[in-house]
């Protein structure tokens, strides 16, 4: 691809917005006003935290879902129904267990008007392409995960699509298989032996996005929006251990941190209610435990995620929680233990509960819950708190937030909960 001639636009999304009404009547905004283009001969990736609507965006682009407002255009024509020249690869493979491998691959061919002879040939070609030549008559349950996803790719490629859509295609595979299949996909896309022009991939792995994509859209959640668009000009095939690759990963990390962990603004006049991240008590103390062993109680978020072996989404949530409680600060990509954090780690384990309790009592959201409990003479019905949470945080699943609050409240003995009576009450500490 040369910079002088930009390839023509294949797909264009204009002002896509998607809203859902949840069973409890709560309205959820999954996507807000998203506009972007996919050009010929390029690989586009969407990355972002879970719940940012990247899979929804993919389904709208394919035509499996209709947006609440906005439109998708394919080569200038508005899309209605499923995009004819698209193939799709699913995270869970989505193979029909009662059809053989060959029958699964042939799924889309007959509807496109292929004769039996053409179907046979196309299936054979697709099978050879993914290296499963001998497995035509096997059933999916006889195959390993990697082989199943190969069938998924073969099925998507058999219809000779112009755009290949992939929803976390390597997400349910083991790392080795995923790496292998990833290289093969890029090889297949580059060698021009098929009609596939562009790839659109949804992933939660930064390395995967850098490995595959020429353009990366970083998305943010609640509501889902495109926060940044990054061009990745590394030449294919990309070497994961090269310095350039590492630098690109770092850059994407920095963008993600910036969008996901923005610098804390100077305290506003009144304490604003912020949702508490869905993390466990032990995760936060574990983070502090880890930090105190680092020089100056300081580390890098991505480094940390890798070292601890959790995904990046989860790590940011944990850091967020610790930051809300004042145990860490996050200048740039770094996570730094504060004086309060050190203090908490210094006391005996039995006394930590008390220290953590006084911190929680100052947290605006917990303070509000405690206030509600006191007004109810120490008791509160689940539904009352759930309703309250729904009003304050309309875009967050209230039940999950509720469960987190209960867990933390119990851990420091501020409150207790009975799921059968569906009631909360204050305990000694509160």
């Amino acid at each position, binding site marked *: 691809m040369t910079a002088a001639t930009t390839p023509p636009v294949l797909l264009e999304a204009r002002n896509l917005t998607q809203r859902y009404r949840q069973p409890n009547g709560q309205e959820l905004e999954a996507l807000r006003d998203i506009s972007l283009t996919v050009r010929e001969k390029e690989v586009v990736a969407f990355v972002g935290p879970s719940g940012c609507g990247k899979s929804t965006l993919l389904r709208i682009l394919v035509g*499996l879902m209709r947006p609440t407002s906005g439109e998708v255009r394919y080569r200038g024509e508005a899309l209605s129904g499923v995009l004819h020249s698209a193939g799709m690869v699913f995270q869970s493979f989505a193979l029909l*267990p*009662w059809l053989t491998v*060959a029958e699964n691959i042939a799924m889309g061919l007959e*509807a496109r008007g292929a004769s039996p002879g053409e*179907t046979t040939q196309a299936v054979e070609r697709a099978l050879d392409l993914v290296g499963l030549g001998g497995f035509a008559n096997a059933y999916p*349950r006889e195959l390993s995960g990697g082989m199943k996803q190969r069938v998924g790719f073969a099925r998507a490629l058999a219809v000779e699509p112009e755009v290949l859509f992939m929803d976390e295609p390597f997400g349910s595979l083991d790392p080795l298989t995923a790496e292998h299949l990833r290289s093969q996909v890029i090889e297949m896309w580059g060698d021009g032996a098929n009609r596939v022009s562009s790839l659109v991939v949804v992933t939660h792995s930064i390395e995967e996005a850098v490995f595959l994509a020429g353009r990366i859209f970083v998305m943010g959640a609640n509501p889902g929006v495109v926060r940044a668009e990054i061009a990745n000009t590394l030449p294919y095939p990309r070497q994961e251990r090269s310095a350039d690759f590492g630098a690109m990963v770092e850059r994407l990390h920095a963008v993600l941190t910036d969008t996901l962990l923005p610098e804390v603004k100077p305290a506003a006049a009144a304490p604003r209610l912020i949702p508490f991240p869905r993390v466990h008590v032990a995760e936060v103390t574990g983070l502090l435990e880890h930090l105190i062993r680092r020089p100056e109680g300081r580390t890098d978020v991505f480094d940390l995620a890798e070292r601890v072996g959790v995904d990046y989404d989860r790590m940011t949530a944990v850091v967020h929680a610790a930051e809300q409680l004042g145990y860490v600060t996050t200048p740039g990509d770094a996570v730094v233990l504060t004086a309060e954090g050190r203090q908490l780690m210094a006391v005996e384990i039995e006394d930590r509960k008390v220290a953590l309790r006084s911190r929680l009592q100052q947290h605006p959201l917990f303070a509000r819950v405690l206030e509600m409990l006191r007004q109810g003479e120490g008791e509160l019905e689940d539904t009352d708190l759930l309703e309250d949470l729904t009003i304050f945080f309309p875009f967050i699943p209230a039940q999950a937030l509720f469960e987190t609050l209960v867990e933390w409240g119990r851990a420091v003995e501020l409150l207790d909960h009975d*799921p059968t009576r569906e009631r909360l009450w204050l305990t000694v500490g509160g």
Partner: protein
Amino acid sequence: MIAAPPPSHHPARRPGLADLAVLALVAGGLALIISFAREFRAPMVAAVPIDLRPSALPRYTMYSFIRGVLALAISYLFAVGFGWTAARWRTAERLLLPVLDILQSVPVLGFLPGLVLGLVALFPARNVGLELAAILMIFTAQAWNLALSFYNSLKSIPQELREACRMAAWPEWRQFRQLMLPAAAQGLVWNGMLSMAGGWFFLMINEAFRLGDHDFRLPGVGAYMSVAVEHGDSRATALALVAMAVMIVASDRLLWRPLVVWAQKYRLDDSAGGPAEESWILGVLQRSVLWRLRPAARWRPPRSARKAALPLRRGIRRARRMLRPRRAVLLVGCLTRGALVVALAAVALGAVVGLYRVGRLLVHLPRADWGNLAGAAGLTFLRVMSAVVLSTLWALPVGIWVGTSPRISRALAPVIQLFASFPAPMLFPIVVLVLAWLGVPLGFGAIALMVLAAQWYILFNVISAVEAAPGQLAEATLAFRLPPWQRWRKLYIPVAFPSLVTGWITAAGGAWNAAIVAEYVQQGSAVRTTTGLGSLISLATERANFPLLAGGVLVMSGMVVGWNRAVWRPLARLAQTRFGLTQ
């Protein structure tokens, strides 16, 4: 070659015993259908004289069996239509699910007069009307759980599988055939098995009943049993019971076992699952050479014919191309939608007219009768609950005991299955004799009869729950040396509780149904009866007192639905949150 049929697992053989068996089965089936068709077309005889000689019994049993199978076929059609509509359109869902819930609770006698009078009026000269009425009455005991099962299967198809089919641009019909039906196959087979058993419950009433001063009787094992009991012929009674048992075992071996094994192919989860079921019948069927004689699948018309059809084909292709544009698709969509709206409106209208009719009937019901109904309903309610409690008292410990021992459970499974699918009302005459001999009044005896109908649901559910309990939990109780009583209290009873609630729901339903035959028993030429809702309904049917019948059925359905909503469902939810095994 990829599209070639999968290589056969059996080497090519010459026709053998397996083929002979298959041929014999096919021939037997054909002969049966022809003989039954003759009975269908025979001139109308309201009450066929029943031949009590043992030699007549096989024919009667076969007739009953065919009625059950035909009713099941209709039930499947209904279930598929209902489930598909309810799963596809949200509006339909909101209307149809409550309707199903209510229909489920209406006892068969509530349908009887309408069906019989309507269909006999429609076919006054031939037996068809009466036969159809009997078949549809069996249908009313089979259809509802099948419909619910199909609906639930459709609702639980993974989203990505649906999307894969849409990506493949499969038309609706193909999605139905290759996605929905396979995904629902296992549920349909298992529930078909339950429905078949449920369909026999009222066999005696379905085949022999009195409506006002008319006696209706159809040739069948149920009618045979009724007549045998009426004549006090104990040998014929015993023979009828044996015939029924043989029919149940035979249909389990010849029909259900092969179907269950076959349906395993259509599991949705990828896991290998537990030990595969086996069926020798399916083995015989698959080994047969006859299947390979199917020429239709690979048949192509001779070349001359194809050539002759060429112009036609071009025309078809052109027509297809013309039909392809969006407009046609939209048109078809609009038509389907329109048809659906009309159908739903018809259902709603039917419901309204039905309600109006029932309302007009109820207006004629004297106030005194309402009082009787209320009192009777209270009595029957107490009996139903006693039956559930008594059943639990024995079935819970026995279920836990059987469930914890794989050896016992394997040994007892076929016996329990036979007893469970045996229609309890056919045992009533014998039990009533014993009760009379013991001097127990029918007011209490009816409870024993209801226990007969209700206990199996509880036993089955407890056994399966205990068997499914994670082995590590049992090991933990052993490791911490819990005394036996504590192991039961801490582990097995809580583990069984959610299933126990499910069992209670079904058992109570069975007990309500049984009330109709338990509180009003024909003993020789005499009728033994005790006050209760069931006996009121039976009496109203026999005297053709339609206002009282409508009132009785209404009260019974209302109590079943109300109790389900107010007690069973909250209890089931509680059981799931408190004792569910998901952590």
